[in-house]
């Protein structure tokens, strides 16, 4: 739950900073419809790496790109379970 709330916090904060309108964050929300652009995603991923110490995107060359918000949260949650 802690990971999910941190992801939500970063989405909200970065959207505000970038002056972008964020869609309601439900699990089936497609990231591409969230209102955020690539730059905003890049910033979120960098901040989450800072806060959570996790970067599931860079961990593997075969990492799949998450399509929905739920998949993105899941990606971080399963990265947290892996031994670092």
């Amino acid at each position: 739950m802690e990971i999910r709330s941190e992801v939500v916090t970063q989405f909200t904060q970065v959207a505000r900073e970038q002056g972008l309108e964020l869609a309601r964050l439900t699990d089936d929300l497609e990231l591409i419809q969230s209102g955020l652009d690539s730059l905003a995603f890049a910033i979120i991923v960098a901040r989450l790496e800072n806060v959570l110490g996790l970067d599931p995107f860079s961990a593997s060359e075969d990492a799949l790109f998450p399509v929905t918000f739920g998949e993105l949260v899941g990606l971080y949650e399963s990265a947290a379970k892996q031994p670092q």
Partner: protein
Amino acid sequence: MRVQQSNRSEWASLRDALRDRGEFHDCVIADDEAAITQSNLISGSALYGRGGELRGRSVLVATASQLTTASALIELDGLARRMVICPPDFSLQHLPFVMEAAGADAIVSDRPIQHFGRTRSILFCPCSKAIAPGGEGGDAYYKTEWVLLTSGTTGVPKLVAHSLASLTGAIGPAENARTKVVWSTFYDIRRYGGLQILLRCVLTGASLALSSSREPTADFLARAAAHGITHISGTPSQWRRALMSPAAQLIAPEYVRLSGEIADQGILNALRASYPNARIVHAFASTEAGVAFEVKDGLAGFPASTLEGIAEVEMKVECGSLRIRSSRNASRYLGKDAPALKTDDGFVDTGDMLEQREGRYYFMGRRDGTINVGGLKVHPEEVEAVINQHPAVRTSLVRTKKSPVTGSLVIADVVLQRDPEPTRCNARSIQDDILLLCRESLSSYKVPAAINFIPALTVAESGKVLRRNA
């Protein structure tokens, strides 16, 4: 000044190429609002038939829409002496400098004349999405110089001069004249990577579906699918974003091209998984050096043998950076006091650093610390200059941080003034203040993703701040 049509493989102008193409007259160029038929530009005009007034002039093409850009470029090539293509994020504050450096005496735009402020003694020619009959339509008069803008260290753009021949040097004949090719690109055609695709379409007889900054990625992919695109190009960052959309599955390209940024193995694998039947090619090109080579083996980096393997392009690695000499190089930078574009031996130093491992070269980033955010160049010095305007800032260092989404991000390390010593609380408000300052004066991709306060910068023995690539 009339151009002799000596060799049919080298056209005097784009219109000449369109005329020559004959059987491909149904090729279109479309954006999200309108479409033009390429052959209509042979005798028609997007410039309200006023192209003749622009003959022999140095013309600034400062359009809002990519579609009108395409029409204007096709119509002006061979007619204007020079055309300067303003990129989509062109800032009007640089207008006087660019006009002066290019000796521009005309502006073509789909925006109202008032947009450009006082443009006394400048010919203004409007440009529309619709093509009306009655253009200049004649033979080429000039070997038009094509000028592209790239961002310079201080934020003032550099004007890179090309010719139709140098821009199209990498474009071979149509692969198979019988198959219908439909191109699309995430790139804007006002930048080198996108312009390559436009020129390819005009010269080889292909249709083109343009992207639009107004349009969400998913909608663009759906539109590209509706056009039946067969070939598509973009930067690795644009591709990462596309693959995050279920709409990526709507297209079934036979050819996927990446350029403009380092293509890592992750994005190459992801594209292979998404488009198992496509040829996936990453290319090295820059506005100054032109198209150098393509990598077709699906692996990051490129085989060391590539350096010797391309007949028309000479390449070497000197002091760690890739240098390129070919007929596809730009000729020079325009403007008074402009730096040299080539080294004494005629090579363009790309500034891209290479490292060789097991017979393959890999790109390691830029020598000058230039940061590549999603294919767009950020010069640390330009961002530092803005940050340093803040009264509480003593000095700053802007550096890159790797990002799995945009390749790189901009990070700023800031040293604050000691007097008065900032408290923790007002440090936060200074941070917000600096970001506000940056957002006001820089394009969004140049604004730091994070600002760290540090006690001092590391200064090298040379007395320069130590810049290192993360």
